[in-house]
């Protein structure tokens, strides 16, 4: 896939000045549709605020696929929700097409959601309302954001269902979610998300609940639609193998932080952070000769949100931990890549 689109962005318009606050070389030049700077998200619990995301920055260009990879609890789904201002943002900023979400009223945010930025979820079984027809749910979304009458919105719904490869779309409008398979439901979710032609689509583990063959279909569908509409896609997954083919760039999250970011090919070729190396080593590869011996596994478990040790949160599980790791490593940029690790702080 288009691993080098990002490189094209930077070479084609490399003369443009990078923004002063943490410029991302990957999209420098092309005005990013989505900019996240030092995002902080905390959930209120009975035991006080628990930080779920502590300082995430990223840029997304139009038509680009940015994958966020991490274990469960790493904060990746929270980042996804925060992009739509659906998680409690306590610091930093999310800018969508130049507009800071923090400065928008609730009404303005609602107009943004679904139209400028849309989201699909992991569970297509439960993400659709079980007692409303697919037609109702699709047409509701379309009419919410576009000045169409019922008939025109219905036409648009049928058109979108066709686009996502659903046969006999007119008949489907009268059906309920339980009458469709999981893959079909996810296609409906995608049709709904893209029905208002948003600039950004956030896909939170869109294939995790699906069969492997269906996974591939959905991923390639997403990729086709991204290319057709020029939508920027933020793809959230715990499975680094899933994104190898579709993502332009990958950001690896650990304990609420982005610890490494790189173009996909670079990340797979030479992971820099010990955690990323561990992740990649734990994925079985058919393109490499078998190493002989069991697949490598990361020892231990990630810290619970808010329970990370001081310094680098990966330190307790890291085979290369040093004394300096008890203080937080800075995010270091190296060309198109960045990494948060003392090993690379040069």
């Amino acid at each position: 896939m288009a691993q080098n689109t990002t490189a094209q962005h930077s070479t084609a318009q490399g003369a443009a000045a990078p923004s002063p606050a943490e410029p991302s070389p990957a999209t420098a030049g092309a005005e990013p549709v989505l900019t996240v700077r030092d995002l902080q998200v905390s959930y209120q619990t009975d035991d006080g605020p628990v930080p779920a995301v502590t300082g995430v920055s990223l840029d997304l260009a139009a038509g680009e696929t940015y994958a966020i990879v991490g274990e469960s609890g790493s904060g990746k789904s929270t980042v996804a929700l925060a992009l739509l201002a659906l998680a409690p943002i306590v610091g930093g900023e999310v800018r969508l097409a130049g507009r800071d979400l923090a400065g928008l009223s609730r009404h303005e945010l609602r107009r943004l959601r679904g139209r400028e930025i849309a989201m699909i979820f992991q569970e297509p079984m439960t993400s659709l309302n079980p007692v409303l027809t697919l037609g109702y749910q699709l047409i509701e979304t379309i009419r919410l954001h576009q000045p169409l009458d019922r008939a025109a919105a219905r036409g648009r719904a049928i058109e979108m269902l066709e686009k996502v490869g659903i046969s006999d779309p007119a008949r489907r409008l009268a059906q309920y979610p339980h009458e469709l398979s999981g893959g079909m439901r996810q296609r409906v979710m995608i049709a709904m998300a893209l029905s208002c032609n948003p600039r950004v689509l956030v896909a939170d583990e869109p294939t995790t609940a699906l069969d492997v063959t269906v996974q591939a279909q959905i991923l390639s569908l997403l990729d086709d639609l991204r290319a057709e509409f020029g939508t920027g896609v933020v793809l959230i997954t715990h499975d680094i193998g899933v994104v190898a083919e579709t993502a332009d760039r990958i950001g690896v999250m650990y304990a609420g932080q982005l610890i490494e970011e790189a173009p996909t090919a670079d990340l797979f070729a030479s992971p820099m952070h010990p955690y990323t190396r561990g992740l990649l080593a734990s994925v079985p590869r058919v393109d490499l000769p078998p190493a002989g011996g069991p697949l490598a596994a990361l020892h231990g478990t990630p810290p619970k949100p808010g329970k990370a040790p001081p310094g680098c949160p990966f330190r307790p599980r890291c085979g290369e931990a040093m004394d300096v790791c008890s203080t937080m490593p800075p995010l270091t940029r190296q060309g198109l890549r960045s990494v948060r690790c003392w090993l690379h702080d040069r």
Partner: protein
Amino acid sequence: MLKFVLRRLLQLIPVLFILSVLVFSLVHLVPGSPIDVLMGDIRDPVVEAALIARYGLDQPLPVQYWRWLTNLLQGDFGTSIYSREPILHMILARFPNTLLLAFASAVVALVISLPAGIIAALYQNRLPDFGAMGIALAGISIPNFWFGILLVLLFSQYLGWLPSMGYVSPAEDFGAAMRHLILPAITLGTAMSANLTRLIRAEMIEQLSQDYVRTARAKGLGERMIVGVHVLKNAMIPTVTIIGIQFGGLLEGAVLTEVIFAWPGIGRLAVDAVYERDYALIQGVVLVAAIVYVLINLLVDISYRYLDPRVKLG
């Protein structure tokens, strides 16, 4: 659909048979007999024996039961020992009154519990929630009849706004009928709303945490639409069951409320029948109430088909 209804109606037959045996046995287990009541202060063994023979009470119970059952199957519920009216007549004359009261009570219950339950759920563990739940708890704890008496004291005795008891047919004088309906309907409706409020609150809270709510928010839907359409339609599915069961209960006659407000419904008919040991009448009332109850449940099941598309009847 038709097949479903037919099968459910067929299932009614064994239920009613067992019920008829139970009712018959229970009635005859109650000490005292209608003859005692009929005889009053007269002490004449000859008259007594004649009466007993006349009503067939000298026959063995299985024989009495068989006679009652065979008549019943021909649509003959028997006649009341006292009023000499056909029992089916008496029941059918009272039933619309009970239906009216039940319906009005259900409306009162819904008008209270629907907004209260929704608001409590939306403001979970905050002041409006505590308020609604406190009132609901009081509603469950306060005896129905006592609350009815308090209402009479306030609105009839002190304020003089509403009649304290009695019934006027809506066909005769609609305004007066409504005025007579208000207090008993509020008494029953508030009792019903206490449970319903708690149920609706719990269902709403459960549904508000579902994934489809997140989807609705992510597509930019306003909270009013999310709550009013997406969540409410899901939350109503279990709620309708409870409403149906409670409504069925009301149709069997709210005994205490009907007695307090002198409301000529099924409940009072049943109480009077028990006092007078009017065997055939008691049996008839209980049987009709059971049939109505089962039919209401059938209606609830059918309504599922419309509320929840996942339910297939058959």
